[in-house]
């Protein structure tokens, strides 16, 4: 019998959630190893419980953050040297040795994944990309001009290994590459078994709702971008009233500036957003964000038509999705084909106020 063992790499909570879901659906008949990494620091905390569930044959931990950081800025010669030593590097950064796999599921085209592609290049091992938010729908990571890595003979070998992209909404994909898009089954919110497993892994305990209006902050400050997001937060808080409004800080931003400026109460919960959505009743809850993928998760992953206000039309700042025509097209397509009637994209600040008031916000003045 040919080897049917699978490996799933998860770099974030969102990816881990999808990994567990894939394990229980499309990969339920296979032996599956899970590789969680330090790209998201909190993932390591979930490792004991992941093991306890025995969902995966093995749960491997990888310290790949430094590796990714190092080689992305190296010159071609150093990159080549790194790719020549993949076997040794893997031994250093992984908690356990990898097996032989027929398929490897991954979400990011980072150095580590590219090295794995080299490592398994001559073996019969397909690489399957799976959903990682809206970038999976719009970005052709392997296009030659996107990164010098795509011109590197070793780093670009992944192109030969990737066979498909799994997406929750494949019809929304507009990347422009030739990879086939296949459907990932949606996560059903009434799937109590999955919910139970996920809640156990993430040690989720039901909490009180923070507020009726949650603003999902993005990592603009972490990326050194000058934007008007604080003005937008302030506008929302002012319109709905501070008692019903809260900002969920982005973990990569070094400081919680909205909190320091009095634009929000403290958001102290540390549970994954997706788990919150999976467990909580989204009725009367409004998510506000400039363009965070997390705001789309509820729709894409769980199929929840919840109140969502996307502020990207009011956003001022130099960010990729404002300039990239493909991203703009994606947002338009998402809105037209998928968004539903509770999805709002205000085009003026006045329209934003009206929407907030319509959704139950009130002016405290």
């Amino acid at each position, binding site marked *: 019998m040919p080897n049917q063992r699978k490996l799933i790499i998860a770099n974030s909570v969102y990816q881990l959630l999808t990994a567990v879901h894939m394990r229980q659906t499309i990969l339920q008949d296979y032996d599956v190893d899970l590789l969680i990494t330090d790209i998201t620091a909190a993932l390591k905390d979930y490792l004991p419980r992941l093991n306890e569930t025995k969902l995966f044959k093995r749960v491997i931990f990888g310290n790949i953050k430094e590796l990714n950081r190092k080689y992305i800025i190296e010159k071609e010669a150093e990159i080549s040297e790194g790719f020549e030593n993949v076997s040794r590097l893997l031994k250093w950064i992984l908690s356990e040795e990898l097996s032989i796999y027929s398929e490897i599921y991954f979400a990011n085209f980072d150095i580590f994944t590219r090295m794995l592609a080299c490592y398994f290049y001559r073996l019969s091992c397909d690489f399957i990309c799976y959903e990682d938010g809206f970038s999976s729908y719009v970005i052709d990571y392997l296009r030659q001009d996107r990164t010098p890595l795509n011109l590197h003979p070793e780093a670009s070998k992944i192109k030969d290994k990737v066979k498909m992209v799994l997406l929750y909404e494949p019809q929304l994909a507009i990347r422009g590459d030739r990879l086939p898009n296949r459907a990932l089954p949606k996560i059903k919110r009434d799937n109590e078994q999955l919910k139970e497993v996920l809640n156990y892994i993430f040690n989720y305990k039901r909490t009180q709702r923070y507020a009726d209006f949650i603003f999902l902050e993005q990592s603009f400050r972490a990326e050194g971008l000058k934007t008007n997001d604080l003005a937008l937060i302030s506008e929302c808080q002012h319109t709905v009233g501070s008692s019903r409004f809260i900002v969920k800080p982005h973990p990569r931003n070094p400081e919680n500036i909205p909190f320091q400026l009095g634009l929000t109460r403290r958001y102290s919960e540390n549970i994954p957003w997706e788990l919150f959505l999976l467990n909580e009743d989204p009725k009367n809850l409004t998510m506000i964000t400039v363009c965070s993928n997390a705001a789309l998760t509820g729709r894409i992953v769980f199929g929840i038509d919840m109140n969502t206000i996307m502020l990207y039309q009011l956003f001022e700042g130099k960010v990729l999705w404002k300039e990239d025509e493909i991203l703009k097209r994606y947002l338009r397509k998402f809105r037209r084909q998928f968004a539903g*009637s509770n999805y*709002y994209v205000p*085009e*003026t600040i*006045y*329209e934003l106020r*009206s*929407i907030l008031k*319509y959704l139950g916000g009130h002016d405290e003045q």
Partner: protein
Amino acid sequence: MNSKIKVSVIIPVYQVENYLERAVDSVLAQTLEEKEIILVDDGSQDTSPQICDQYEKAYPELIRVIHKKNEGLGIARNTGIRVASGEYIAFLDSDDTVEPEMYEEMYAKASGENLDIVMCDVKIIYVEENKTSIVSSYPKENFDLADYIANGNNITYSVNKLFRRSIWEENSYEKMLFEDISLIPSLVTRYHRIGYVKKPFYHYYRRANTLSTTFSGNMIDIIQAFRNFIDTSDPYYHEEVVYCTAKQLYWNMTQSRVLFQADFIEFLKEYKKDFLLNSYLAKDRKIHSILDFLKKDVIPDKIICVHFARAIPQEYLEKITEHFPKTKLITADESYYSKDQLPDNVNQAIDSGHLSYAEEYVSLKLLLEEGGIVVTPDSRPNLNLKKLRLNQIFFGFEDPDQITSGCYGALANHYVIQALLETYEKDNIFNKAFLPLKERIRDFLIIHFQLQVNGKKQTLHGEIPVYLPSVLSYDMQDGENCCKKSEFPVPEGYELVSDTVLKMWSDRLMENWNLYKRELQSKHPSAVKTASIDSGMLSQDLFQRELERQIQSVVDNYENSTCWKITKPFRAIAKIFGK
């Protein structure tokens, strides 16, 4: 009074107690003895009727008085004509005078040459300016009628002419303003036996606040008067008549009645072929320029008032009658459109009691179909609104943050109105929350035309003017108001203005004032010193009064300065670049 009467002088009388005696005396002083004077009191409320009666009592053989209800000048003249027995008839306006020899010389000319009409020159006395000028009717005493119609003066006046009485057996004045223009030039074309005494017998006193110097809604009659002139004149003189009309139009459109320019443009278009093919016009470069107006679209002369489950206020209708007597008023209530003619959300709005939302939709729909100006029942339009018909579309601020939906206008089928209407078919917050139209318009203009929400006048993409709150929402008594909100009753002489607009207005005045001061200081440093006051020398009250006096003095200087007015556009441009 008997059949030997040569000239009947008809004087319509209306509210002229201060001038009437002067007018009548000038007729009594005529050297022509065989005359009669018919005073037609047109329902005056002052002492004019008594003055008339006293004259009749004093000159029973000469003067006859008729008291009647007020119907206007033309009908008063008709009334006088009906009782007149003279061989010829003359008209005198009750605030003007005539030279003593006028009727004797003109009658001599008329009877001697068996003429239908005899005319003279006119002396205009500018009362306030204390100046006079003589308007010669024609350069020569023997004149060519065609040339006179085309190039003469005073053709429209009734008062500088003597008419054979039989003319009035088949003609009469209409009940309208500009009854002279409507009838007299046409008579001149049809009664060819015309003579001319080249003397300025008639004295026309021109004052401020008379019909010829103030505006009212029924002045729109001038269009009908022009129409009558062209349509009833002898076709033989059609070329001259059209050219004569074009000259009158030129004057009215560019000088005296610019407010009615949109109406004149529609009239031009109505007789487009006549004006375009006119040989006189082709040679007259100045007058020919009116044909440029043919290229201009004007908003149709229609006012749209939608009133769901409420009556149109009487005061609203009175304003329409007063200022827009010939305008088509389109009213629509909830039964105007059937349910299947309205989008689902508008029907839902009606069912759920959001009537203003439905009213606003129907207003837009009617505006798209008909073109015109939407004036809601809560708004009160005034005559100035006519000016805005020269736009293809217009909106105005209600305050610094809001666009008014109380008054706005557009051509029929204007794409902006069409696009606004289409937003009612979409899934958006405006329809979900039944938001008011003013928010929809504002956001639409921001998104598509980069409207700056600041309450200031702007022209979006060079084609969509958005006016100050003082134009379409509040009357700030600066002469610019076209329509104002009237949601609450206010005492006579007061204006109800929102606090935000009042603040904005105050800031605007201060901004202008400071700009003026800066300019003044930069050009004439000493001039500013005159405005400084040694407050220590004056009591508080005196100080305040002196301050107000000096401020007023500088403001007057500022507002009246020609240089300031001329350089306004340059300052505005410099300010933009300065930013």
